[in-house]
């Protein structure tokens, strides 16, 4: 919402400075975005007098001037039609920054004659639209003084209005708030009651009173829309960024911003028959004044004549029956439309307008007759014409809105003592009708321009606003004991997992919860719904991600494109499998691409492989205190993984994690040529510790005897799984075997085609005494038997 200082002073009698006004606006909740003071651009400009004016020797329209800037006479070439000897204007000496051109003025040479400065138009100074000639100041203006001191400078305020303060979308409302805050006096509104001399030939009928309770029409005949909009009005509209179009349009715009009162003017000669306010028919055509065509629906309110919808009620006028320069007879509409209807239609057809903006929030239901009179007065004053009687459909009557405030609430809700008298004063200044009940409560009847006052809390806010939030003395929250654990076990372990993965060399990233359906399709799992956004911000961010991997892969791709080929990223965040609340799961996912490091003199750089991401997955599960040692490993990872190089860590049916190399055809779709290794740990599937579980660790049993490591190698079929060898060995003698490690894997020469050799190192832990050679032999034989039985292999000789 923008307005100028002079506009504000139209309603507010105040001596306050621009800074004081700006500070107060912010303090009372009308936050100042910007104050633009055109004077700030007028540095260097001075008043000057044209001492001598003759024709340029080489031009039929340029003049050669001698300009007195108070210090000296300067030669200036000037092309303005209104320049003449004796004129006092605004002079820009060489070196001045001209706001309109954003350039510093230099010594010019125009048709062979040097020019040492310029006399300026309003437009050039950025203080108005007029560029037909140079500014003419009154003859008694002192020469050589700063132009900012004598020009009618009108600073512009830009404030943001919260949705509850609809009346402040008009300068009148802002003025009232400032007056209530003690910054001046609100001037009385002077609107003449205009009586018509004839009955309106256009009648109005409302079919839907829910959407439009009141419609005040007025016929004005014999107007002149070719008349000039008065300069003051034009200047104000220009200052707030509106273009002056014609007096009739300018007047409606002006009143919209002056009183937050939308209006519409029809060219009455173009209307066929009477006005009916009704819901549009399905598919009914409407062409807006922006020349866009809409097929309306039965929830759109139309202002119609016999030829159809001519105006989308309260939102936008139509192209066909609007005013033009030739307009002679007009029909003025001042109506009330209900916010629900306006909001629905505006949103549905995506039409924004100043009118919609105001109706959607709140328009004073008692401002129809008043607004009609206000506009009529201006139209007659500017364009002339003869006025009909008002044509009123519906009624302005509306229920009183009453709220009560217990004065003690100020203390026990806000924490500040305010006397009843002070409360009454504030509310009265804001336009409430205030009285005190027998029980001390303050009764406040809302002014009709306030649609937001529902109860006590609203009145409290009004009082606090005016008292000033800064006057509340802060008080720390009371707490009398040690804080208890802040995080739930699930939240706590999520943090531990993040730190563990970062500690393992992965960079934590955060990516959008959305992703590209074209990529996401490869990562959706069976039975999962596609969760699409109805209105994505970009076509490639249109789906709630079914996996964290696509965005990580895109991240890797971008890094590789920037020349960073070794990428290790992880993210802990949600994956979505349905469109309803809760159909999401928390995943710690990561990818590794490239090498462990760039090549290094120690020769330790190596390509990432499946065992890096398997380790990541296991580390995450372990950090979450999950059962990582008991987890089974199966090879049925989703199809976006490499079928032969991926695995699932699970507890029965419950998937704890997927890991492995990604399927090359999937990574290729994303544009990655490299092998990519990935893991996804399903945090919600890792069992949480039971509430009652003690934090005490299992008792540590230490043997006093040295353990013995023994190596065995087996030749097994290639398809035999390493885990089967390890498990068979481990379970061969549970009491003594504490660890089994694979230390060599061999395929190739000296072995049949379909065989491989797996060498294991087994740790035997004596319990009561050291092993004899014989005992060890027996134990080794047990391991050999167990492995051979399980795998069908044999000891390698």
């Amino acid at each position: 919402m923008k307005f100028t200082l002079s506009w504000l002073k139209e309603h507010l009698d105040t001596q306050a400075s621009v800074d004081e006004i700006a500070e107060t606006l912010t303090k009372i909740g009308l936050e100042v975005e910007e104050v633009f003071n055109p004077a700030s651009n007028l540095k260097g400009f001075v008043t000057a007098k044209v001492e001598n004016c003759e024709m340029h020797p080489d031009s039929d329209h340029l003049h050669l001037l001698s300009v007195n800037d108070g210090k000296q006479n300067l030669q200036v070439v000037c092309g303005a039609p209104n320049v003449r000897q004796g004129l006092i204007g605004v002079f820009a000496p060489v070196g001045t920054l001209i706001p309109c051109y954003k350039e510093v003025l230099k010594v010019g040479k125009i048709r062979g004659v040097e020019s040492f400065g310029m006399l300026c138009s309003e437009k050039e100074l950025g203080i108005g639209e007029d560029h037909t000639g140079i500014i003419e100041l009154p003859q008694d203006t002192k020469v050589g003084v700063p132009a900012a001191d004598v020009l009618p400078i009108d600073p512009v305020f830009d404030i943001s209005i919260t949705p509850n303060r609809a009346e402040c979308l008009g300068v009148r409302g802002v003025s009232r708030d400032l007056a209530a805050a003690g910054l001046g006096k609100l001037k009385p509104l002077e609107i003449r009651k205009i009586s018509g001399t004839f009955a309106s030939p256009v009648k109005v009928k409302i079919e839907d009173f829910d959407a439009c309770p009141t419609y005040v029409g007025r016929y004005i005949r014999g107007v002149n829309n070719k008349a000039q909009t008065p300069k003051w009005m034009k200047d104000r509209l220009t200052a707030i960024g509106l273009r002056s179009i014609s007096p009739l349009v300018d007047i409606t715009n002006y009143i919209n911003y002056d009183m937050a009162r939308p209006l519409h003017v029809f060219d009455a000669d173009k209307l066929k028959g009477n006005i009916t306010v009704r819901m549009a028919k399905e598919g009914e055509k409407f062409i807006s004044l922006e020349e866009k065509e809409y097929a309306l629906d039965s929830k759109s309110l139309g202002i119609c004549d016999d030829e159809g919808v001519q105006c989308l009620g309260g939102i936008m006028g139509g192209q066909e029956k609007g005013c033009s320069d030739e307009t002679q007879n007009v029909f003025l509409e001042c109506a009330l439309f209900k916010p629900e209807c306006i909001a629905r239609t505006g949103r549905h057809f995506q039409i924004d307008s100043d009118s919609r903006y105001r109706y959607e929030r709140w328009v004073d239901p008692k401002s129809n007759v008043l607004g009609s009179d206000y506009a009529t007065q201006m139209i007659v004053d500017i364009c002339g014409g003869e006025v009909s009687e008002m044509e009123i459909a519906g009624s302005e009557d509306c229920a009183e809105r009453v709220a009560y405030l217990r004065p003690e609430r100020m203390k026990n809700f806000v924490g500040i003592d305010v006397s009843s008298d002070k409360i009454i004063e504030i509310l009265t200044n804001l336009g409430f009708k205030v009285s005190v009940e027998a029980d001390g409560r303050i009764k406040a009847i809302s002014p009709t321009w306030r649609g937001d006052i529902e109860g006590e809390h609203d009145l409290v806010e009004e009082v606090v606003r005016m008292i000033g939030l800064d006057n509340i003395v802060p008080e720390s929250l009371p707490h009398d004991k040690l804080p208890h654990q802040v995080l739930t076990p699930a939240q706590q372990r999520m943090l531990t997992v993040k730190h563990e993965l970062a500690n393992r060399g992965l960079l934590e990233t955060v990516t959008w919860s959305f992703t590209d359906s074209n990529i996401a399709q490869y990562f959706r799992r069976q039975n999962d719904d596609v969760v699409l956004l109805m209105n994505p911000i970009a076509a490639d961010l249109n789906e709630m991600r079914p996996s964290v991997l696509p965005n990580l892969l895109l991240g890797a791709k971008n890094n590789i494109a920037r020349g960073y080929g070794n990428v290790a990223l992880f993210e802990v965040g949600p994956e979505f499998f349905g469109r309803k609340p809760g159909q999401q799961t928390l995943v710690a996912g990561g990818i590794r691409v490239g090498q462990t490091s760039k090549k290094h003199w120690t020769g330790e750089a190596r390509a990432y492989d499946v065992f890096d991401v398997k380790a990541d997955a296991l580390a995450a599960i372990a950090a979450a205190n999950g059962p990582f040692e008991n987890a089974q490993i199966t090879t049925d990872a989703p199809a976006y993984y490499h079928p032969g190089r991926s695995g699932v860590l699970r507890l029965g049916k419950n998937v704890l994690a997927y890991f492995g190399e990604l399927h090359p055809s999937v990574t290729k779709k994303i544009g990655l040529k490299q092998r990519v290794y990935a893991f996804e740990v399903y945090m919600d599937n890792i069992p949480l510790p039971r509430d009652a579980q003690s934090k005490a660790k299992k008792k540590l049993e230490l043997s006093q005897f040295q353990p013995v490591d023994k190596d065995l190698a087996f030749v097994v079929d290639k398809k035999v799984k390493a885990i089967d060898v390890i498990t068979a060995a481990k379970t061969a003698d549970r009491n003594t075997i504490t660890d089994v490690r694979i230390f060599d894997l061999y395929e190739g020469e000296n072995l049949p085609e379909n065989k491989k050799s797996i060498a294991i190192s087994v740790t035997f832990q004596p319990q009561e005494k050291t092993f004899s050679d014989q005992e060890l032999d027996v134990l080794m034989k047990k391991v050999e038997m167990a492995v051979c039985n399980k795998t069908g292999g044999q000891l390698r000789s």
Partner: protein
Amino acid sequence: MVDTTQLKNELLQNVSAAQDMKALEDVRVAALGKKGKITELMKSLSSLSVEEKKEMGKKLNILKTEIEAALDKQKAILEEKELNEKLAHEVIDVTLPIRPEVQGRIHPVSKIYEEVVAIFGQMGFEVAEGPDIEDQFHNFNALNTPANHPARQMQDTFYIKNLESDDFDDSYVVRTQTSSVQIRTMEKQCPPIRIIAPGRTYRSDYDATHTPMFHQVEGLVIDKNITMAHLKGCLYDFVKAFFELDELPVRYRPSYFPFTEPSAEMDIGCLKTKTELKIGAGDDWLEILGCGMVHPNVLKAGGIDPDEYQGFAFGMGLDRLAMLKYGIPDLRTFFESDVRWLKHYGFVPLDVSSMTGGLSNNGGAQR
């Protein structure tokens, strides 16, 4: 009687002349070996008289001890020399770089989460959570924002598509604010309530300070005697602790949120220059959060009697806090997974936030 003095001098000379272990061993054998000079003299004692034997034996023993000591001493010298020579051959270039050690980083948003949790934890708050996809009720209606409320347009909401219908269906949205967790908390928990709810939020907007996804932390305090003075105290305590400043100018401006009344926005003091933004005393103000007293309709929607309980709520951007505290200029970069950015603005994994141990050590040195 043999004069041992000459022999002693001769042997000691030989010992000190031995320049390696082999030569020294030769000297030892020549003196003390089976046929060594001292051994020979010892053997010849048997031919002497008792008196002579006694005297000579004593002399020879002294000689033997002296020579052995000299041999030991020389041996130690030679051993040290030999070790020094060996070490001299083992020299390596210690300026060579160490083996590559990869260290990951914690994202600034996670770090801020931990800092915020640490501070509010100290004030007795717990961390609550809610889903990213919300229904109309929790995201809007229960928060006193019925359909067609203009406040719904304050936030550009993303709606979830109904795959069974082509019509506009606004049943489900991705939450536009973490305030929905207020309602979910009140549904589950009776007052007194003191929670913060950090999480992802979504609005259709994209520039240097707005992204379609960002992070908020919501706060909710409900009890019988909580006033706006507590709201101010709590938030003032928070910003001072968060920015690690003893003094921080703040101001509150009346504002509007459908779910609070009175509502306010809080600004903190700052100094803006062309090149930097310094939080603290200065001429400028920086908006940091929105807050207010919980609207009675919201309490009712959460099943709490507004005549018995009252309280305050607030919401602020975690990413914005990160930008302000750690001087990160552009919000969009948070979500770009640029490894250079993650290494630069990320935090070492062992830098854990707490009020007693410190909120952060500024990320640690980058390795």
